């Protein structure tokens, strides 16, 4: 994160809040470093929400962040309550879990280049990335890619389903009834497709 002001006063322009004390800047920096590695933003927000109401109301903005950080680091096993209390580490910190991108599984495609496929009309999650013009259409696999995360219609969080993505070739003759050998390739997630029978 740019502008990591951890030490000493910060020069800012009018209207922008200054860190009241150097420790606030360090909390910000800590959060920036640990977020995404040890916990997701949702968990951070949740940790703030779990603060006892009295404590929450008394705390300043950065005090809430610090409390949330303390809670999360203890829950994730990075530090113990004793270490927090004394300020001394008694054991090395464990390794953070792999970043979400690191858990991309190997590509195990169901279809191969040249396979004839047909796009599904109905799908449990809703085809958020299937353009209407290829719905229920027949095509052939041109390339095999990914895996990529399957887009989710649930607004809250992206489901972590990795799927191969195929560039599927459709003839414009079939799509639009044109007298032409032109084609359109559309990238489609595996669960959007069925083998042509």
């Amino acid at each position: 994160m740019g502008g990591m002001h951890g030490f000493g006063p910060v020069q800012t322009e009018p209207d922008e809040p200054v860190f009241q004390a150097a420790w606030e800047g360090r909390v910000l920096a800590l959060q920036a470093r640990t977020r995404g590695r040890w916990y997701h933003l949702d968990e951070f927000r949740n940790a703030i929400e779990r603060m006892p109401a009295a404590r929450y109301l008394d705390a300043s903005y950065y005090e809430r962040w610090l409390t949330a950080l303390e809670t999360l680091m203890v829950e994730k096993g990075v530090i113990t309550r004793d270490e927090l209390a004394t300020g001394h580490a008694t054991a090395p910190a464990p390794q953070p879990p792999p970043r979400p991108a690191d858990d991309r599984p190997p590509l195990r495609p169901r279809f191969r280049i040249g396979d004839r496929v047909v796009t599904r009309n109905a799908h449990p999650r809703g085809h958020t990335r299937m353009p209407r013009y290829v719905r229920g259409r027949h095509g052939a696999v041109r390339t095999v890619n990914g895996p990529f995360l399957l887009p989710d219609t649930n607004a809250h969080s992206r489901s972590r389903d990795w799927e191969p993505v195929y560039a599927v070739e459709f003839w414009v003759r079939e799509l639009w009834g044109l007298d032409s050998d032109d084609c359109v390739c559309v990238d489609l997630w595996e669960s959007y497709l069925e083998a042509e029978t």
Partner: protein
Amino acid sequence: MIDREVAGSLPRKNGELVFESPWESRAFGMAVVMNEKGAYQWEEFRDRLIERVGRRAQEGTSSSEPPTHYYEDWLSAFESLLVARGMIEPEELAARVKEYQELRRDPVF
């Protein structure tokens, strides 16, 4: 920041203005930076952009060329994602918007 008169005289590598107005560039920049910081994945933002673009196509409001609504949709997608992630509260946003509209806040940072 470069206003339009000045920008018109600069060589533009893409052959045309990248942003029509400063607010577009800020909307663009914010969405990219927040993604880079890990607030959300790019495709999550894109899901929302697609939704808005699609809605406009259905409503038939996308007929104006050039597409003046593109960055409006972009900003709206970004805003909804921030709210969904709990980074911005709708009330505080509404209050802040009003401050700017009523000239109670200086638009120069």
